[in-house]
């Protein structure tokens, strides 16, 4: 722990711990107990959000970077890790969906799964979101986690995201009337059966993995993080210390560890109600505030037929989505303080502020159209065996490509 940065510490058995860490742990536990007493689901999603933030902060699993780094520098490590995570989540969520819907050909969609429509809104949303995430330097979950880490840039991006979500909410009816209401939410097992769908998705992920690796090997490799040699553990205390230092002290987790943890967390979340998603919660809170100025737009037209990371009816502050996103920020904050990585950082180049704002606004609008972000409409949709997840993913790639051309020309 950085003694200079955080001088106020308390002595606990074995270590000196900053007040901030103790406070954050108490806050996580206290909110958790309170929300659980309101509704078990709320409490569960609060803790899921905290775990989400810890995983993202420790592994630096940046979805924007996954697309951007491959396009910009031929670095596919992040994207490959995410592909593995998608495969793990696909298997996990399929098992649950097979239990919820024993006969997929019957036409019922699994409840809670992120099966968005195969629509222009999904494609436009993906492209717009892809441009935005490269401009802003992180997708929505990346912005939330870096807010917790102290990046001022991400706080500015968040303002943009909220603005974009608000604009999306206000214009949604047009998209619903002209596009979304006419499109089908295609669930692969309804067309192909459960097992062939799982096989097809895994094969496609595998094929993309090989393609990314091939692309990556054409350009010079990037440095892989090296694990520090550890001192042998003899006692229980040694083992606990070793586990702690591996989780919070050894630089960062590998991208692969992060992606697989996230896949397992998503499967857990789906076991309770719905897979991971954050933009729905942001959209809801934005609308709650806007409503106070008589400028709200929720519920969205056709909300009862929409699957994905939705904002809900707009009558409540506390939902599983708002729990996830607030838990995420506090989880990332706590992890970064424990790891000694928290620091208020503000960009010295003025252009970054309008850039983050514009990027955020694009992401907010895109996420509303696609009913989810890189998490809700991609990382939770492909494992839902939804066609929309693939559509959004391809659109993200196209958008990120445009975004890279833009940032290359910025100072």
């Amino acid at each position, binding site marked *: 722990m*950085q003694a*200079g940065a955080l001088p106020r510490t308390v002595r606990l058995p074995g270590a000196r711990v900053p007040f901030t860490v103790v406070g954050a742990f108490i806050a996580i536990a206290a909110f958790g107990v309170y929300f659980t007493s309101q509704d078990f689901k709320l409490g569960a999603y609060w803790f899921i959000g905290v775990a989400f933030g810890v995983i993202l902060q420790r592994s630096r699993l940046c979805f924007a970077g996954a697309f951007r780094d491959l396009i910009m520098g031929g670095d596919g490590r992040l994207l490959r890790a995410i592909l593995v995570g998608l495969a793990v989540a696909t298997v996990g969520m399929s098992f649950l969906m097979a239990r919820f819907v024993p006969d997929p050909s019957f036409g019922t969609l699994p409840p809670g799964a992120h099966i968005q429509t195969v629509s222009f809104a999904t494609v436009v949303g993906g492209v717009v979101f892809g441009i935005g995430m490269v401009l802003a330097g992180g997708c929505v979950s990346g912005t939330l986690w870096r807010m917790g880490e102290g990046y001022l840039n991400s706080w500015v991006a968040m303002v943009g995201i909220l603005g974009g979500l608000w604009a999306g909410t206000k214009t949604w009816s047009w998209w619903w009337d002209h596009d979304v209401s006419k499109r089908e939410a295609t669930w692969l097992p309804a067309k192909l059966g459960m097992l062939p769908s799982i096989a097809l998705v895994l094969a496609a992920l595998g094929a993309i993995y090989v393609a990314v690796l091939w692309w990556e090997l054409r350009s010079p490799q*990037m*440095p892989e993080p090296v694990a520090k040699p550890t001192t042998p553990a003899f006692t229980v205390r040694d083992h606990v210390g070793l586990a702690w230092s591996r989780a919070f002290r050894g*630089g960062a987790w590998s991208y692969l560890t992060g992606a697989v943890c996230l896949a397992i967390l998503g499967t857990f979340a789906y076991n309770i109600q719905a897979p991971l998603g954050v933009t729905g919660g942001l959209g809801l809170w934005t609308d709650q505030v806007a409503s106070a100025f008589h400028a709200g737009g929720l519920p969205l037209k056709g909300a009862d037929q929409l699957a994905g990371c939705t904002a809900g009816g707009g009558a409540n502050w506390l939902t599983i989505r708002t729990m996830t996103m607030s838990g995420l920020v506090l989880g990332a904050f706590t992890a970064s303080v424990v790891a000694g*990585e928290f620091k208020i950082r503000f*960009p010295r180049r003025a252009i970054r502020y309008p850039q983050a704002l514009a990027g955020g606004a694009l992401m907010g609008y895109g996420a509303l159209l696609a009913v989810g972000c890189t998490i809700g409409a991609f990382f939770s949709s492909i494992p839902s065996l939804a066609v929309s997840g693939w559509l959004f993913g391809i659109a993200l790639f196209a958008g990120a490509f445009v975004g890279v051309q833009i*940032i290359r020309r910025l100072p």
Partner: protein
Amino acid sequence: MELDVRGEMCPYPAMKAKEALKKLPATERLDVITDHAPALSTVPWEGAKLGFAADVQPLAPGEWRIRLERAEAAVDQRKALAAIAARAAELTSER
């Protein structure tokens, strides 16, 4: 020459360092000041690809100076990669 990329996150530290290195006069060295931990591996790596050796030193908690100087001999990319990764791990885990 000094390049202050504090507050900037990926990809800017590496991107700006690369631009600066390409324009760097032959006799000069480049000091990159950063507070973004991933830059500890991405910036030296951009340097290695352009024939620069890197020396990374902590300036303050969570702040580092990456000094890039023209390497006398040709940079062995495999060795450079291993050294960069090891140094980054060392700097971000010892506190």
